[in-house]
């Protein structure tokens, strides 16, 4: 299995770290508080890269692997940052039968990232979602708050070019 460190360079600030350390110190004496710490960390940084998980490991003495195990168990935690433009492609039933799978693959190839990842420049992140309630427009995707419907694979380039 290839390692899952994000390819986006880490740019945490001293201020963020202080905030995280304060949150850890507030929680660390409570048994079973790792999930709460990870939630705080994700609130502060937006995601949980190795640099952030190491801060938690060093401060609490909890092994890094145990922290990573919890972070990958729960869907609420992300190892990758969200991009400046968050592409969310619906793979719900209606969109899927209308060819969203191919469409999704095309974007993935174009950006060189998989579902859940972010481009190294931090511009685009990609994720698959399930039904956004616009089945009449299937297949559909959103880029931040912009909605695109009745898509074809040929439109990928022109949509990405807008950002």
């Amino acid at each position: 299995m290839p390692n899952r460190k994000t390819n986006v360079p880490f740019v945490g600030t001293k201020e963020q770290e202080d905030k995280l350390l304060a949150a850890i110190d507030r929680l660390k004496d409570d048994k079973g508080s790792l999930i709460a710490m990870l939630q705080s960390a994700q609130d502060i940084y937006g995601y949980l890269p190795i640099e952030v998980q190491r801060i938690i490991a060093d401060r609490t003495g909890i092994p890094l692997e145990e922290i990573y195990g919890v972070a990958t168990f729960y869907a609420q935690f992300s190892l990758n940052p969200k991009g400046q433009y968050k592409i969310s492609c619906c793979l719900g039933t209606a969109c899927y039968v209308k060819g969203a799978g191919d469409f999704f693959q095309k974007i993935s190839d174009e950006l060189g990232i998989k579902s859940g990842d972010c481009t190294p420049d931090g511009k685009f992140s990609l994720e698959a979602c399930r039904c956004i309630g616009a089945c009449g427009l299937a297949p559909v995707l959103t880029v931040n708050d912009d909605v695109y419907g009745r898509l074809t694979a040929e439109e990928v380039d022109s949509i990405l070019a807008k950002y």
Partner: protein
Amino acid sequence: MSDNTVNLKINNIEVAVPEGTTILEAARSVGIEIPTLCYLKEINEIGACRICVVEVKGQRSLVASCVFPVAEGMEVRTASPLVLKSRRLTLELILSTHKRTCLSCVRSGNCELQRLCKEFHVEDEEFYDGFNNEYEVDDSAVHMKRDNNKCILCRRCVAACGKWQSVSVIGTNDRGFDTHIGCAFDEDLGEVACVSCGQCIVVCPTGAIYEKDQTNEVWDALADPNKHVIVQTSPSTRVTLGECFDMPVGTNVEGKMVAALRRLGFDGVYDTDFAADLTIMEEAHEFVERVSSGGTLPMITSCSPGWVKFCEHQFPEFIPNLSTCKSPQQMFGAIAKSWYAEKKGIDPKDIFVVGAMPCTAKKFEVGRDAEETWTQVDVDIALTTREIGRMIQRAGILFTELPDEEFDNPFEEATGAAVIFGATGGVMEAALRTAAEEITGQELPSVDFEEVRGTQGIKEATYKVGDLTVNVCVASGLSNARRVLESVKRGEKDYHFIEIMGCPGGCINGGGQPVQPAAVRNFVDLKKVRAASLYEADRNLPIRKSHESPLMKMLYKDYLGKPGSPRAHELLHTHYKKRGRH
């Protein structure tokens, strides 16, 4: 019977056991073995694999006998049709995601899953076909490989790494069908703070984790007419190798082991015990030096490469406390490629030293940067006891029928002090036998330091040596080492000398020793039985103090000068480096 005895019936047999006993243990006490896969006594009692299920009258569903306590009047059936059907279904499901390459698997023949499938007569192994995750084999570590395609997610390795060793570099990642055992951020094992102890290997029920087999390199060397290939056997290997040939746990097979190695074609079959005596000469001297000249104390032993690596990763602040002595394996190699080479008139480059070791971390140790004598590596290949067993099998040598033979000269002579190196407390006792006499200049009334013997994880003792009071501590298993070092750090303990062995119980329970299935491990104290055999060997040896060995006297007179001399330092001492915590 006392109040806390519980009476129950297992398969209609009356059983009386203490309260708190599990059904699994109660059944075992009346000769019934309930199969298990995930259960490992004290460290992995998670009731996850569902192989040990039994029927309990009045319970709505089958229960996991490994964690279910007995109750008064309970009626248990361990092999009812429902139980057997359930276990078989579980096995079929496990097999459905298992890489079934049993013919070429290193664990074929002692795989716990294979044994159960045979016992339960699982016929249609492809009954549940469908999508399977495919994992790359991780061969990044020096000492082992992990093949998650054979992993059954029992988590025994995770428990060994975390609970026994407090190393915790492996764990359960992801969820559901994607669940797999791996390191943080799915880094390769070679990239993280793994200490190479191999405890994960000896608890794995299948072939998912195994040492890197280096037997072919040794076969090649043996076939090379230009190489002088010699083997050294560690103190503990002689009391475990027999297990590779189905002999009872703890059988001392020193004579047969020597005979078998000679028949494999080694040019010399030598005893690492000689180098253990040498380690004591240097280490006891180093201790006396540190005490008398105000050096860094407590001094901590450095024979266990798993422990040394753990120290470098987790407690770099204790590096100055580590004895600078190389381990017996490395000292043997250094002497073989210097004094021995000179004596035999062989170019050191043509000498190929093989270690027969209880340990997977020895594979790491041979590659340590510092372990070099001039331009030579001290030891060329470190094989585990298991690999030695496989070589003997492959050569068609009928081990149990061999005569007992003696080690070759000049390294055939060793003391009782060296033999007990293989058990926790042994190095401490051996060092005390020599250091005490070096300090006082008088003969010890008794060489038995009983307080540091035994299988407990942490042992303490205080000895009066002349005018000195010496506080010693012995720890085995790295979670115990962690506890001891933290108490030293907090200033709660004032030890002068600490012995630490990476594996629980010391080398006799090392990660390179023969794999015993959980069915044995959970009911036999391997540490205790194997160690007893070493202490018996110590008792029976004529010389029990390293400094009284004629070989030591000759080696120092002839070649090394005095313990701690510049030449001894060049050959027999090493240094350490700080490594990352994760």
